[in-house]
């Protein structure tokens, strides 16, 4: 059966060139970077070079990059770490209602520890309005965390404008750039952020590696203590193979970014137009907003997303109903709820996230089978909810 993977926002395969780098550092140059001998020195060089590649993609000095296990740990480190470092300055944080659980759940934890968090709403297009952030700031605010692009609907937030309003008040700004890093430009000075989170497995590097940028001089208490790796900012033996792989993935992302973004955007538009043409009662979330080129969130009235997902899966097409990690939960997506998506669409959303391997034939295959799948699901559906 044909296999069509359209869930690149959940995770990506490791590219062959990236896998080769990984292999080398698992098998041959497998040393511990803290070791003094040649195995260790080669591993150290690999980590340093990867740091340079990440830094280049962020337009940041290499020393400002810290590697860790992924986006979730990075978000936790920054939110918990700034909160702890600045607790005597204030105990108020501002974030948005559409953040990833790695931010929202960490905020919920901080709320149990005596911090106050304001969750700024979004407009109907899934955009955080800068003025809404500005209004939420208080004398007590120590950190604002607004994601760069949303993982479920792909909307890109006006970070530069938010940064201006936040930083003129002397408040630190963090962005979760897990979904943009490697897909669209993420230069920290253009975004105007003090902290930025990235993760490897969304840009064709392996899972289990990611990290953060911290503007030099910003306060941050570590989350993990130990062997003083990463200059004491994140202890634990460096995941050398994955870090080196991430470095390679960053090089490839930088090389191909413009071309891939344009190519995937065209395919995504073909998908959106095709679905609209062939299926009635379709809604594209955040359609009017700037969005990631690879992402579209399409809802089908009167059906349930997971039923569509499973039917697509039976025909070899992998998509998501929203974020991978909220799948299986009872509640509809917190992102769609925050956007005020109408009730009849709320449970019927599918996220299509394209990637490097996506072809026009794949999009056409989806356009060929999805109308029948939606029709069947709608036929199963009670005529009208009383």
């Amino acid at each position, binding site marked *: 059966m044909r296999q069509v993977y359209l869930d690149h926002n959940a995770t990506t395969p490791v590219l062959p060139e990236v896998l080769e780098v990984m292999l080398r550092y698992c098998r041959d140059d497998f040393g511990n970077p803290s070791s003094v001998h040649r195995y260790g020195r080669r591993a150290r060089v690999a980590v340093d070079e990867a740091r340079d590649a990440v830094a280049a993609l962020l337009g940041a000095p290499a020393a400002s990059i810290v590697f860790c296990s992924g986006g979730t740990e990075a978000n936790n480190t920054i939110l918990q770490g700034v909160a702890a470092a600045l607790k005597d300055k204030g105990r108020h944080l501002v974030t948005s209602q559409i953040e990833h659980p790695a931010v929202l759940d960490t905020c919920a934890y901080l709320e149990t520890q005596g911090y106050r968090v304001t969750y700024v709403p979004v407009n109907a297009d899934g955009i955080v309005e800068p003025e809404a952030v500005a209004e939420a700031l208080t004398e007590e605010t120590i950190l604002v965390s607004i994601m760069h692009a949303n993982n479920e609907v792909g909307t890109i937030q006006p970070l530069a404008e938010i940064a201006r309003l936040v930083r003129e008040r002397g408040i630190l700004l963090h962005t979760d750039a897990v979904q943009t890093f490697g897909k669209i430009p993420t230069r920290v000075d253009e975004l105007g952020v003090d902290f930025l989170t990235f993760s490897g497995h969304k840009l064709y590097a392996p899972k289990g590696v990611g990290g953060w940028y911290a503007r030099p001089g910003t306060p941050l208490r570590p989350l993990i203590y130990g062997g003083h790796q990463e200059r004491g900012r994140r202890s634990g033996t460096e995941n050398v193979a994955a870090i080196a792989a991430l470095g390679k993935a960053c090089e490839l992302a930088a090389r191909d970014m413009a071309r891939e973004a344009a190519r995937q955007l065209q395919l995504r538009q073909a998908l959106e137009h095709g679905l609209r043409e062939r299926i009635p009662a379709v809604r594209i979330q955040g359609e009017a907003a700037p969005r990631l080129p690879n992402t579209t969130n399409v809802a089908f009235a009167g059906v*349930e997303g*997971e*039923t569509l997902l499973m039917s697509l899966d039976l025909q070899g097409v992998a998509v998501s109903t929203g974020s991978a990690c909220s799948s*299986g939960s009872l509640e509809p997506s917190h992102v769609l709820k925050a956007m005020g998506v109408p009730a009849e669409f709320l*449970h019927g959303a599918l996220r299509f996230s394209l990637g490097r391997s996506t072809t026009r034939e794949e999009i056409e295959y989806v356009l060929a089978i999805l109308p029948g799948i939606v029709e069947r699901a709608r036929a*199963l*559906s009670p*005529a009208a*909810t009383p």
Partner: protein
Amino acid sequence: MTRYSDLVQEHFERPRNVGEIPNPDAEAVVSNPACGDTMHLYLRIEGDRIVEAKFKTMGCPAAIAASSVTTEMLIGRRIEEALAITRAEVSAALGGLSPQKVHCSVLSEDAIKAALRRYRPRQTEG
């Protein structure tokens, strides 16, 4: 974290007794406001025995499978017996539902009870 048993998969791919019964002897529409699932259950009853059951459901694969297996369980049962069907039996008939999907079997149990509690045998005409 959702995974479906082979039975759920099978009922989802080939649901039994999909459709409506015109002028049914009993029916109910139940919804779970949290997940938005809705089941419409139709029954034809002769004497105190269920002779036909059909459904229409909007919901996830587990909800559809639960509806399907519920109609199979209902057909041929006495009303008393049907009222005794529990969510656990529905779940068991599907080979077990994951914790996140147990609520789908609740929907079935609710639909049975709602349809049958309201049921009054028709007066024989004439």
